């Protein structure tokens, strides 16, 4: 048998045999844009803090997953969308909904289980939808939104409406088998979809390192030829820049793309999680060094926005959220008859 040639020690990594997206650039936001990003992140932060408070008062029940700490991801990515595009996510969904333009009071009233809630009080925190705002849930089964989002992308391509589907999922969902079934079909059929992995480092209480053989999640599409980009998800402008690159890739008909957003949630997995799997110092250190809202605030001040103006924004936001909470607290519960409505669309 012929000897295999000795492998060169200085072998360079194999050259890519296919096109790759360019390295995304941090988005150059105007002062107004940056202010809007700041407002949007603040909206989510204040909303979630209020939701946590109402949960503590017993006004919100069941499971309630807060987005605090991760705001820059959704704000950066969704600010790049057009109104033709669809959004779908898992159960940590409040923030994404607010960014789709759904009024905070409709979301908050759903959390308190009222008739005025976006799902008439029948869905709750994890199951909310708004076809009008192209927000398709709100899904309680970990990873289900990935094939469903791929189906939305299929519908965009089928109807030729030029829209893109944006499917968010976490580092936990990234280990579900159905995610890879969806990756395969999305690339095979060149569907217009951006898969956004919100890697907040903990799948409930299990850290990425303890659950993922390949913990660099942006590489998870490689065996399906789906390119991936790792992004600082604590920086709203980095998130926006990456979204621009990803959307361009998809809109050019090159098929799906993965954005791995490295982020962090400050609160427990859900309201009932004591978060004993990480130290208080770890959380505090992220808050001190990497908070996305504080980061944006510093940049606003550098851009010449006065501290007073920022204070005014914060004050207005608190008022806005308090109004939503008051509404959600005082709105009536669904009528008993609602129990039997909406099971089926038609009568048989």
């Amino acid at each position, binding site marked *: 048998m012929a000897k295999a040639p000795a492998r060169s020690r200085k072998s360079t990594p194999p050259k890519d045999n296919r096109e790759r997206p360019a390295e995304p650039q941090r988005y150059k936001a105007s002062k107004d844009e940056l202010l809007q990003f700041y407002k949007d992140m603040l909206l989510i932060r204040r909303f979630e803090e209020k939701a946590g408070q109402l949960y503590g008062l017993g006004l919100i029940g069941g499971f309630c997953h807060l987005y605090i700490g991760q705001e820059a991801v959704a704000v950066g990515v969704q600010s790049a969308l057009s109104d033709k595009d*669809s959004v*779908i996510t898992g159960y940590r969904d409040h923030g994404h909904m607010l960014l789709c333009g759904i009024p905070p009071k409709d979301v908050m009233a759903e959390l308190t289980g009222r008739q005025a*809630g*976006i*799902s*008439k*009080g*029948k*869905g709750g925190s994890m*199951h*909310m*939808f*708004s*076809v*009008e705002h192209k927000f*398709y*849930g*709100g*899904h*309680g*089964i970990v990873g*289900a939104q*990935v*094939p*469903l*989002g*791929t*189906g*939305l*992308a*299929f*519908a*965009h391509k*089928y*109807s030729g409406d030029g829209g893109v*589907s944006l499917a968010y999922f976490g580092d936990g969902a990234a280990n579900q*088998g*159905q995610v890879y*079934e*969806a990756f*395969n*079909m999305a690339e*095979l059929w060149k569907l217009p979809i951006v898969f956004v992995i919100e890697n907040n480092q903990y799948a409930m209480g299990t850290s990425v390192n303890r659950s993922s053989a390949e913990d660099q999640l942006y590489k998870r599409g490689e065996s399906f030829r789906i390119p991936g980009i790792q992004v600082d998800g604590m920086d709203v402008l980095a998130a926006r820049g990456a979204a621009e690159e990803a959307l361009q890739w998809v809109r050019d008909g090159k098929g799906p793309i993965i954005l791995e957003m490295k982020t962090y949630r400050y609160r427990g997995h859900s309201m009932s999680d004591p978060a004993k799997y990480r130290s208080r110092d770890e959380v505090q250190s992220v808050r001190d060094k990497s908070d996305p809202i504080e980061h944006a605030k510093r940049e606003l001040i550098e851009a010449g926005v006065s501290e007073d103006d920022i204070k005014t924004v914060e004050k207005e936001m608190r008022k806005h959220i308090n109004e939503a909470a008051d509404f959600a607290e005082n709105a009536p519960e669904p009528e008993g008859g609602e129990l039997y*409505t*909406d*099971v*089926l*669309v*038609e009568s*048989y």
Partner: protein
Amino acid sequence: MAIELKMPALSPTMEEGTLAKWLVKEGDEVKSGDIMAEIETDKATMEFEAVDEGTIAKILVAEGTDNVKVGAVIAMLAEEGEDADSIEAPSQADKAEAGEGANAAPKEDQPADKAPNAPESPTPHKVETGARKMFDAAEHDAENADPEIPEGTEMVKTTVREALRDAMAEEMRSDDRVFVMGEEVAEYQGAYKVTQGLLDEFGDKRVIDTPITEYGFAGVGTGAAMGGLKPIVEFMTFNFAMQAIDHIVNSAAKTNYMSGGQMRCPIVFRGPNGAASRVAAQHSQNYGPWYASVPGLIVIAPYDAADAKGLLKAAIRSEDPVVFLENELMYGRTFEVPKLDDFVLPIGKARIMKPGKDVTIVSYSIGVGVALEAAEKLAEQDIDAEVIDLRTLRPLDKATVLKSLAKTNRLVVAEEGWPTCSIASEIATICMEEGFDDLDAPVLRVTNEDVPLPYAANLEKMALIDADKVVAAVRKVCYVD
């Protein structure tokens, strides 16, 4: 010693086929693995390979012959050293099996020197199985035409397979949002040929082959429905849909409710369900009761071709998610389908297949044939049974069942499926709760045995329902025995 080449059985349910083409002629030498002929079954065109070596001595069934019975001798093979010219055709009795079209003239050569214990070529052995009994029972037609059909309508003989295909094709013609996806639905023309011809007519945008990835494509289909399309998702069998049941139940069925009625999911999940023939435990389950327990789903399980067509069209048009349970053994069965421009049947309405006054037999899907056969046997014993085909399992047409019970006062459910938590259990409960005063005897269930379906033919037969079991139950509720 010449070898008889016999019409092969190329699928578990094949009884006869078309000898489409000979690829060899008399005098040709063949060796093991050579393709000798193309044979068409109701599902596919298959190649018929040589197993033994030798010379084709005689071709007894001409190409193009239809209805050649499995096991009929179609050619004679001379082995090495044998004189091909001296081979004789087998006796007339054997040839008669070759179907009306068999037109090969027997040669009047001298008889061959046949050894006394000449080894025969393997004869496809027709085992009597439980599935075969159900399959035979499925020849029974309804006595009652559906009341929705206008009088004087022309009836066209159609297989269940064609009826399903026609339903999809008609709906795809009238609504651009309708598309079909699943394993082998496009280029292969359907694993069971239900989607035959759809790719040609509608193209690969609307008839889509998927990878083997049930969970994934059930989710993609459901997402597409949420996005405004009307998908038909075919499962090669509902046994494989267990991988996908999360999306059927959690994503498709519950969305409308969870969204307060604003997000719809108009999708049809369809494919064969229940026992086929000798495919054993993992390919034989009836999922009717599983899906029928889920609020938010419509579950349909038709028996004959007309219902298959009319109800599949209704399912595709529905704004609700539908699980449409077909049956492999029924695909090749022929029934009359009304020739109407737009034949749509109502969802949620049972059908009285045979009126009767002494006892009610309730069934659905392939069980209806068994129930009709039982009714025939019972008629010989002066018991007049009414047979109801539920057709839709959810929402269940309780009114038709209870009305019949009020008339006959006795009821038996025949279900090709397990007994525990079955549709039969549900019917029994409904009779208890809402028809108690009409009952002259306890409701009895005739179901498959409470075991995973075995492979061995005798055990399979013991496990599945048949007409005799239904007859025995009816005699019991009539207090005859």
